[in-house]
């Protein structure tokens, strides 16, 4: 059974993705193990994102998560069922707590803190049914359409195609936070086009499936495997490190290609300067260029860095 999960189709084409995520996730958790609360005051333990394959986390971690859940406000039995599912079922991707908390508290609204949720694989995700309303008799509409499983009734295939096009709409990036507050598998992805010099056609990737520049870099590498992509950024999970000037020029000199992106102001920037979270909020398009062309970008990039500092 687990094979079928592992082999499940990642429509982006990165079938290696699940393993990559699993290792990253467990790394991330180790660093956060002792902190229940991170810098932003969010209780990450309770809202931990779980995208790793079952079995990639240790049993006691699962337990403490369950405990954290019981502590958090989950008055609805529907929400509880979801969690016992997460623990009992060994074949499933584990739902994040944020999503079910939100669906459990219909109408009460869930703050952004409870929902650092992202499900990059909204297609093949087996979903436990979480009833949006406990009692049907009152004709209250669900708090948000995105929270209702299987609604609107559109085939997964079509949803994915639409999701990949939606990132092209202007202003979509600014809604990222709002979109993240919506929970559940139907939430939008953040697809951006990736072009490469000399490649006959473009690709699209969902930026939300990556947690760091490193992941993005390896994903791009796999996608455009015949070319070498320059290493950029050393940003891990927390991503607050900037890239200093000398490091940047080292990297540019050292490799044939670099990755650049078009930001909200329609400027072409070098990938790797800003913290990851800031990057995915402002990135509209990606382009892999020859480093000789990218050198021209560097001075401007440094200016922007300096003005921020």
């Amino acid at each position: 059974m687990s094979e079928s999960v592992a082999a499940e189709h990642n429509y982006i084409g990165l079938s290696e993705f699940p393993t990559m995520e699993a290792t990253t996730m467990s790394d991330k958790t180790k660093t956060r193990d002792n902190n229940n609360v991170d810098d932003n005051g969010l209780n990450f333990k309770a809202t931990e994102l779980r995208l790793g394959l079952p079995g990639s986390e240790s049993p006691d971690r699962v337990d403490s998560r369950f405990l954290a859940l019981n502590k958090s406000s989950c008055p609805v039995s529907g929400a509880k069922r979801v969690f016992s599912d997460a623990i009992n079922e060994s074949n499933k991707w584990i739902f994040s707590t944020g999503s079910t908390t939100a669906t459990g508290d219909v109408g009460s609204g869930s703050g952004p803190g409870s929902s650092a949720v992202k499900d990059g694989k909204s297609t093949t995700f087996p979903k436990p049914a979480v009833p949006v309303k406990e009692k049907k008799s009152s004709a209250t509409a669900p708090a948000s359409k995105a929270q209702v499983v299987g609604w609107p009734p559109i085939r997964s295939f079509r949803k994915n195609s639409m999701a990949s096009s939606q990132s092209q709409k202007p202003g979509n990036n600014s809604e990222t936070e709002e979109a993240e507050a919506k929970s559940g598998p139907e939430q939008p992805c953040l697809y951006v086009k990736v072009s490469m010099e000399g490649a006959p056609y473009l690709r699209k990737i969902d930026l939300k499936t990556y947690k760091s520049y490193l992941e993005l870099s390896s994903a791009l590498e796999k996608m455009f495997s015949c070319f070498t992509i320059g290493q950029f950024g050393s940003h891990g999970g927390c991503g607050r490190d900037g890239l200093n000037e000398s490091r940047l020029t080292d990297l540019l000199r050292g490799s044939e290609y670099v990755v650049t992106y078009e930001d909200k102001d329609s400027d072409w920037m070098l990938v790797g300067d800003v913290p990851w979270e800031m990057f995915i909020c402002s990135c509209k398009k990606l382009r892999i260029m020859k480093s000789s062309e990218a050198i021209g970008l560097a001075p401007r990039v440094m200016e922007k860095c300096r003005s921020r500092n």
Partner: protein
Amino acid sequence: MNYFPDEVIEHVFDFVTSHKDRNAISLVCKSWYKIERYSRQKVFIGNCYAINPERLLRRFPCLKSLTLKGKPHFADFNLVPHEWGGFLLPWIEALARSRVGLEELRLKRMVVTDESLELLSRSFVNFKSLVLVSCEGFTTDGLASIAANCRHLRDLDLQENEIDDHRGQWLSCFPDTCTTLVTLNFACLEGETNLVALERLVARSPNLKSLKLNRAVPLDALARLMVCAPQIVDLGVGSYENDPDSESYLKLKAAIKKCTSLRSLSGFLEAAPHCLSAFHPICHNLTSLNLSYAAEIHGSHLIKLIQHCKKLQRLWILDSIGDKGLEVVASTCKELQELRVFPSDLLGGGNTAVTEEGLVAISAGCPKLHSILYFCQQMTNAALVTVAKNCPNFIRFRLCILDPTKPDHVTSQPLDEGFGAIVKACKSLRRLSLSGLLTDQVFLYIGMYANQLEMLSIAFAGDTDKGMLYVLNGCKKMKKLEIRDSPFGDTALLADVSKYKTMRSLWMSSCEVTLSGCKRLAQKAPWLNVEIINENDNNRMEENGHEGRQKVDKLYLYRTVVGTRMDAPPFVWIL
């Protein structure tokens, strides 16, 4: 009964092709049953668990064409876990063992594996046609086996499947001797395509009528393909992505002009809008247009294209066309029979641009309209009443208001009267999907008037068990009833158990049925498979002392002649 020799009767039966009619013929007398079963070549199985392959082959040993449907319809919307069932392999294994001369296989919502595709490709020498709709579980390696081993392959039609694309060379697995292709549809593949192999394949397929490309086929390759296949009738354009240099674009325009047989157009997954005009010269011939994946084309370009399509019978578009765009459709496409309007903004952020006005305009302008699927933000009873008056010929009417329990936005009333008008006026209605705020009243109307209704989809509707009872008692031809998030419980479920003999299946999720109700049903009806899908608390259902009163999360029941299935996963409990 037999005034003629069997051969004559058999010859007469050859003219009867619909499986419903064939089923009816076989019930006339034993002799006709016997003649019919030996001459039946095409079999349709609406639920793969209603029968097993051994019994199928015992009855129809001369089977050539098989249609199989697996998962229940709501599986399309992720309401059914992937491991639920619908496995193809046992069927292929049984068919292969029996050495039946299988030529065509059409599957919907089945779990297909590379292994089953490989076995299929090797077991049937005359295999010609494979159509997979909304299936999953296989990769391009499976396609490679089909390409390599099926010497007489005519159709390879992949519609909206979840295929793991290994970006291999499956297209180059077609041998050079393969020249028989009529249909090649791989639009749902996400990976790269070997363009050289594709062009050579198309060039050596003079009978190719339907070609649907995936997004990895760029504009200049499209132009070359169309030059190779000017006889094409059905074209899926694929990506249309690259901004073409003027030479590519001119070539494309010239190639398109030569495709005088082109009747159906689809794709445009990442269309550059200004390239659409290249198709204007052939639009007057088009009978079918599917722009429902063309998210990047906006209203005005869509309208410009559609204005040229006066013969259109089938149109699938996004709601970005707007009410104004639908008015253009209504005034241009007088031959329109089927319309599907899909939502372009799944976040429901109010960007959806079609309302009840668009629907009314279409109903007024298109007298031949008989099938509609319409996603919109709002609806009124008045609009539905008008639509019913304008179009009493609906066979399929599916309305999806994106906010599941939204009332009439003008009067704040439930939409009972509107849907009631539809079922009353449309006497041939076979399929209906409801949405919006609805009470038991709408079901009273449905039970009273929808005499031909075979499939009904209900979500977030009704008040009491009476609603469901009206439907079960009234709709004599009901085959598939699927209900979610509605307050129907054991009383309705158990009221008339024999009703389920006449139905293919019943789905109820997030309703009020309890475990004890389901158990009672299973006891009363041993010819039913009553399946409880409980991914959440499989164990709890059994241990809990209150188990009888515990609500069942998902119930799926279906008539069957072969009893409990053996391949159910642990979270499916068959009572």
